[in-house]
């Protein structure tokens, strides 16, 4: 490879490897069955001081044979209630919520396969330069045994029909039918607002995954 002050040589990215069946040890040790760290990351990021409407996001992850995948790491990344990411690259003129990082981590349950994220509903975020605002959404990232490289997708909110129909990302998905795989229906349970986001790794209802 030629290297000169005008033609920089880039370093190749480190290749991905599956997170394996024991991903919980490193990332959610309490699910693996032990306590080790004083401070643990979790799927409940709607602490008492966080601004916004409390919601639960839950769902199951299905493999290509329709089986529930019960060992998947689920991470989410989202804007705060005002629609701003807690990160220096987000320079929108909106309030930062100092109590809300916006990142959650959990695993699908070994018995039921259900994952649960307790968070707040994000606001709408500006789109790419020159594009219109994105509908409220939560970014998902999945890793597990059998997943060779982390899978990125987005969850949109079923009760944001107008914003969803204008969303620049949903609209670039060529087949309108496939856009629906990213939209989580809203329900209420015991006074809590629940969005159900089931993810299909493969098969007829395969979820849209992104190369970001």
């Amino acid at each position, binding site marked *: 490879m030629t290297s000169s002050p005008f033609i920089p040589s880039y370093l190749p990215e480190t290749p991905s490897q*599956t997170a394996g069946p024991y991903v919980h040890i*490193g990332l959610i040790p309490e699910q*693996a069955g032990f306590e080790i760290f004083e401070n643990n990351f979790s799927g409940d990021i709607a602490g008492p001081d966080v601004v916004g409407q409390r919601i639960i996001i839950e769902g199951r992850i299905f493999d290509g044979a329709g*089986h529930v*995948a019960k060992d998947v790491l689920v991470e989410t990344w989202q804007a705060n209630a005002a629609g701003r*990411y807690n990160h220096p*690259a987000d320079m929108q003129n909106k309030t930062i919520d100092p109590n809300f990082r916006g*990142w959650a981590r959990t695993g699908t349950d070994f018995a039921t396969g259900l994952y649960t994220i307790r968070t707040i509903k994000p606001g709408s975020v500006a789109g790419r330069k020159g594009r219109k605002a994105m509908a409220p959404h939560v970014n998902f990232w999945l890793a597990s045994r059998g997943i*060779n490289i982390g899978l990125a997708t987005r969850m949109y909110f079923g009760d944001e029909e107008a914003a969803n129909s204008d969303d620049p990302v949903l609209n670039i998905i060529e087949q309108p039918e496939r856009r629906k795989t990213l939209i989580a229906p809203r329900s209420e349970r015991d006074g809590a607002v629940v969005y159900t986001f089931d993810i299909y790794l493969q098969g007829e209802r395969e979820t849209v995954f992104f190369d970001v």
Partner: protein
Amino acid sequence: MTPQAEFHQRDRDLHPPAHTPVYKTSVLRSPRIPLWSLQNSLSEVTGPIFSPDELGPLDNDLVLNYAKQGEAIGEQTIVHGYVLDGNGQPVSNTLVEVWQANAGGRYRHRNDTYIAPIDPNFGGCGRMLTDERGYYFFRTIKPGAYPFRNRINSWRPAHIHFSVFGTGFAQRLITQMYFEGDPLIPHDSIIATIPDKSAADRLTARLDLNASRPLECLAYRFDIVLRGRRQTLFENKLQGS
């Protein structure tokens, strides 16, 4: 630079594809419809930031961080290196998490039933933030090889799992590190998922005698490269932020 700098396109040829029959579990867990290419928005160029006060003082010492009545059993080993981006710039203050089997090849996990014994003084996980140069290090026990259900007689080479964040969620990476000279490496079905041999070889940490501690423990060097941002090489406001 623009603070919203997008990432270079991921070179998928350096990574394992989703569907790799040599690793059977991937067959039913691999999307078959091509990934939808998404140009970066704020959702991809941003990502979680962690602070040192979230971690404990022993979080990067796997020899001691679960010690109950004594130290973990096995070869004490230092693993260290730099997290860089594709532009060769250090990725500072980023969270690196590691997990592994114990010296006998057994994981402290409710689903692991391998015959090797659990070590009462070894948890098998650790975490640290890179410093301003992108440097990380941790002390651990060299993990053992173990069998897994893939083919009749499939064994994993000794390895340590790594999880790294970077400065944007699109850099998120989980991978595995192997040890130089491990005779199981050429037989491993997980490494075999990577079609590019030189890419796979970059997952093998090199023995680093200079970083070893005389009369105490050996060291291995493992550098990690995350995707770079489109930016001029000498500006990087995100670093240290």
